């Protein structure tokens, strides 16, 4: 197979995977409206190219630390959509047994060491996981994804400095969706932004169009090789745009409708589809990706809806080995 065909096939596969993320989140938002998703969810609609491009270019053995907006990252690392939907519904068989929810989802079996409910908290954890990788002499990298809001938290400085000082095998990906919760990050950030801050700490910084899934994949793969080759920590600044609100219930009225409509024209899924069309991929294939994804996530929804609540014993499980967390322990 020649290279253009191979590239096209890859792009088609990434287009399919972006649709899986989109369909998962649309299904989750619908389920939230139905009362099935219990807590807040933070959709990454419009940011799917970052998940598929960056996380999709990691190896199975690589480790991943994600954020509260991490459904796409988690799916791309290889977590089961059904287990994730169960987790969002707080049901048995969720990735975390229904005890974590969307913001605290993890799947250690695929190297996904956790989303995080605290902005920027995953940066130091990722640096530490990379420290362990080096101490154990393993050949893998740690990928840490955070948003543009995280660069204004202390752990950004401490964690990046740490990774540089100890020359750790970690790839920092700043998935810059332009908003820190409901505030424009630009209005709250001094200086020229994420890449300059990373450079100031001696970490090579690379910018990529975060809505170009092929480019994101290329850059990530290259940086991964560089890290494995002993190049030390690397920083990838991926510029994208959050097409929906901070949470699923945030109507994002702080943005002009015209601006949002303009941004939808740069939807990464539509962009990939356009490129595929230009290279002769048929509508049937493109819509097939969408339909298959919707069907898969609908099935995940149905299964999660039918899943039982966790056993009550789960309440007391996995707190810690010593001590008895039950109030019954105090009956005398």
């Amino acid at each position, binding site marked *: 197979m020649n290279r253009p065909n191979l590239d096209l096939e890859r792009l088609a596969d990434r287009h399919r995977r972006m649709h899986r993320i989109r369909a998962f989140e649309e299904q989750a938002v619908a389920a939230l409206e139905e009362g099935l998703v219990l807590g807040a969810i933070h959709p990454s609609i419009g940011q799917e190219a970052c998940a598929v491009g960056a996380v999709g270019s990691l190896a199975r053995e690589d480790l991943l630390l994600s954020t509260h907006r991490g459904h796409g990252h988690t799916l791309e690392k290889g977590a089961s959509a059904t287990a994730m939907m169960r987790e969002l519904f707080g049901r048995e068989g969720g990735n975390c047994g229904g005890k974590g929810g969307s913001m605290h989802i993890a799947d250690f079996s695929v190297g996904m060491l956790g989303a995080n409910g605290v902005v920027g908290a995953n940066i130091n954890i990722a640096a*530490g996981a*990379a420290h*362990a990788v080096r*101490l154990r002499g393993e050949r893998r990298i740690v990928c840490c994804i955070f948003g543009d809001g995280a660069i204004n938290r202390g*752990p950004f400085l401490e964690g990046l400095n740490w990774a540089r000082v100890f020359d750790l095998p970690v790839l920092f990906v700043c998935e810059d969706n332009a908003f820190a919760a409901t505030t424009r990050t630009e209005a709250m950030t001094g200086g020229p932004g994420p890449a300059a801050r990373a450079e100031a700490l001696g970490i090579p910084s690379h910018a990529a169009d975060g809505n170009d899934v092929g480019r994101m994949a290329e850059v990530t793969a290259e940086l991964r090789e560089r890290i494995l080759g002993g190049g030390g920590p690397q920083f990838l600044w991926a510029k994208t745009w959050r097409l929906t609100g901070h949470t699923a219930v945030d109507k994002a009225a702080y943005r002009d409708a015209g601006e949002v409509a303009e941004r939808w024209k740069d939807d990464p899924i539509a962009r990939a589809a356009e490129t595929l069309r230009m290279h002769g991929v048929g509508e049937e294939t493109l819509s097939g990706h969408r339909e298959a994804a919707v069907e898969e996530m609908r099935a995940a929804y149905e299964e999660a809806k039918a899943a039982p609540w966790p056993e009550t014993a789960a309440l007391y499980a996995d707190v810690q080995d010593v001590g008895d967390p039950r109030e019954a322990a105090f009956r005398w």
Partner: protein
Amino acid sequence: MVTTTYMEAGRRALAEEMRRDPTVWALGEDLGRGGVFGQYAGMAEEFGPLRISDAPISEAAILGSAVGAALAGTRPVVEMRFADFALCAVDELVNQAAKARYMFGGQGGVPLVVREPMGMWRSSAAQHSQSLEAWYVHIPGLTVVAPATPGDNLRLLKAAIRSDDPVVYLEHKDLWGLEEELGDDEPPGDLGSARIVCEGSDATVVSWSAMVRNAHAAAETLAEEGVSVEVIDLRTLWPWDREAVLASVRRTGRLVVAHEAVSVGGFGAEVAAVVSEALFGSLKAPVKRLGAPRVPIPYAKPLEDMLRVGPDAIAAAIRAQL
């Protein structure tokens, strides 16, 4: 048997665990030069800079990276220098380390030890003297240890390192030079069992960390007056040895809880409450708590001394119960 200080006991525990288990390592500021008090003296020479790792003054990164390193298969021992500085890493300890095992449904654990030198020592004043054990006991997921003797520092630090969960390990700075004869082979201690410092039948004093010395001194004073006092050193505050305390108070009918920390909301309140709930009918006197008044720790020695719960205060509290 070898004469060992409280500080040397901690060093020996870490060194023995590092020789036994290659995944154990330590990180913190100035460790390469032995640590701020000398607790790590000579260790970088034996274990190298990767396993006795210097760190920038980045408490959040020290503790946060320890969480990541623990999740990824190692057993980090974190040095926080002063318990007070650990407050720069509260998110990493409370929101991350303590919760990861539970909120991820048991997929992974966080086997780390946070060593936090605590307590009043050499007029260190408000930001270098605090006893914050009660904060940590309040957090599900954390084990809390506060050894009072060299032997317990040796055995309990080993147990803490072998624990699969995060342990807040509070060494009292005023005990660094305390000596004890220790054997060549000291196995890990039991997290959650108290030590009966001296037996007695008229009253029970529950204490931990450096305050155990004062409780013991009070018991010796009262023994001369014909009052028999049982002193219990809790050693670990979560889990804590309720059975030992309740069994003792059931016999004596009187309880004084003494600690260095601020009395309001202190762990003494928890002990007092549990004993009152369980043994109300058999108490011969109201339970008494002794702790510091609710003020920041002052620098001037006469003022600092006013915060200290001394042997006299403990003895007086017991006399008042008789």
